[in-house]
């Protein structure tokens, strides 16, 4: 498969600020994402997972290295074709669900009949048909996150970056949202990069899982899951799922302890 995203030697160093000295947060990172792949990144807190996502998205610049999306160098802005879903609720409370989903399309000057059609399709795809005229405040956290997903999907991104999108949800809702994400991934054919701290989520959803070290984050190993494309949360009952999760934890345990010790050190 062709590489949709290529990350070459990306390193991020934050300059010294006040009493805090220079912080080497990430890298060097090399990564290649194939078209249509589902890739998850796990790692201890503060290892630079979100920094990596922001660099790939074009939200921030690497200190060293480069990122290519669809053959073009990423830098300074988010290229068309990349959709981002954040952990924090980014739905707009002053707009209805329908208006929220139409937001990006309208800003791009898409004609009204097309906007209407795409919004209705997205409502159907994300199971929000009954809530088109509701305001986000009338929805649960999981449904608000679905609104954000729908708002991203209508722009038909080829790469979807998710930064711990289910972090604020309870375990059951997270499993169900994971199922929905898998279904959307199959139906849209997009490439997904998921940042998560949940090992089971990474093991269940991804084709490959990149395991990162404590700061400065580098890939310790990229684990291939070998799940069929047509999968759902029931794979969590398979023995292989337990093996993958155990392997991920075996890789991460020492790193997590290191990360906690470093955070606790004044």
């Amino acid at each position, binding site marked *: 498969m062709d590489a949709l995203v290529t990350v070459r030697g990306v390193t991020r160093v934050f300059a010294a600020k006040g009493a805090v000295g220079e912080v080497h947060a990430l890298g060097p990172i090399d990564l290649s994402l194939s078209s249509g792949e589902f890739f998850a990144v796990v790692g201890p807190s503060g290892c630079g997972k979100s920094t990596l996502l922001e660099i790939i998205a074009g939200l921030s610049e690497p200190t060293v290295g480069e990122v290519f999306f669809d053959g073009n160098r990423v830098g300074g802005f*988010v290229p068309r074709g990349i959709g981002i879903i954040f952990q924090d609720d980014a739905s707009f409370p002053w707009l209805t669900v329908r208006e929220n989903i139409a937001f990006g399309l309208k800003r791009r000057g898409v004609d009204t009949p097309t906007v209407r059609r795409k919004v209705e399709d997205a409502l159907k795809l994300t199971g929000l048909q009954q809530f088109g005229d509701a305001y986000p*405040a009338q929805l649960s956290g999981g449904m608000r996150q679905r609104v954000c997903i729908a708002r991203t999907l209508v722009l038909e991104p080829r790469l979807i970056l998710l930064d711990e999108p289910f972090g604020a949800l309870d375990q059951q809702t997270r499993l169900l949202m994971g199922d929905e994400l898998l279904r959307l991934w199959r139906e849209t054919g997009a490439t997904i990069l998921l940042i998560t701290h949940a090992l089971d989520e990474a093991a269940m959803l991804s084709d490959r899982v990149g395991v990162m070290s404590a700061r400065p984050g580098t890939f310790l190993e990229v684990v291939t899951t070998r799940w069929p494309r047509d999968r759902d949360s029931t794979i969590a009952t398979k023995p292989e799922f337990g093996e993958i999760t155990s392997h991920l934890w075996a890789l991460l345990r020492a790193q997590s302890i290191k990360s906690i010790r470093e955070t606790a050190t004044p």
Partner: protein
Amino acid sequence: MRKATTIRLIVIFGAVAALEIACRAGWIRRFTMIPPSEMAESVVRLFGNPEVLSDMRQTLTAIAISLGGALVVGFLTGAFLYAVPRARRIADPLLATYYSVPVFVFYPLLIVLFGLNAIPKTVIGFLYAIVAMIINTLNGLDRVPDVYWKTAKAYQLGRWNRAVHLILPCAGPYLFTGAKLAVMYSFIGVIGSEFILSSGGLGYRISFAYNNFQSDMMYGLILFVLLVVIVINMGLYAWERVLMERRGGR
């Protein structure tokens, strides 16, 4: 009708009725206060008095100019201070202590500068209102979550689209509070100034009626000012409630 509204109306109408009875029964001397029903009649008569109509026009024009100026300049200043942290650090102590300064003390100076016309009272109304707008603009912009700034980048929004479609609606409730306060402050500034040295306007007319023992006129004017302020504030309050209900109080 909600229970709270019913109780509120009962309290208001009860107080007005008690005042009416107290005035009619002579417990409150007519020289001190006329009955509320006569105040209402006096308000109606005001609209047949060309001098009062001219005063109303003068006052409402001054308020409209001072309020409009305070809203626009206050918002732009707030946005500038937000965008330039160094300027904000300089301005912060001034903004924090601004309302401890009795702006009216500058009224004689403004008359020296601009003359005995509508400008000094308009400036006072503006000076009273502007800081409420600046402070609330800053509050609103400070509370725009980081994720919205990132979302703006994710949707490739330019500065204008980001401001109009994302940042302003997000900061809306705070800007609304600033506007509500600015309305009240501009009324206080303009009408208060007219009491002191002005040669026209509702404040001047109330003061004139008071000094000449024209109780009917004075209470009619006071009631008129109260009604205007209450109607404007209730309208703004109702509008704000609709907006906030949509947001679920967020």
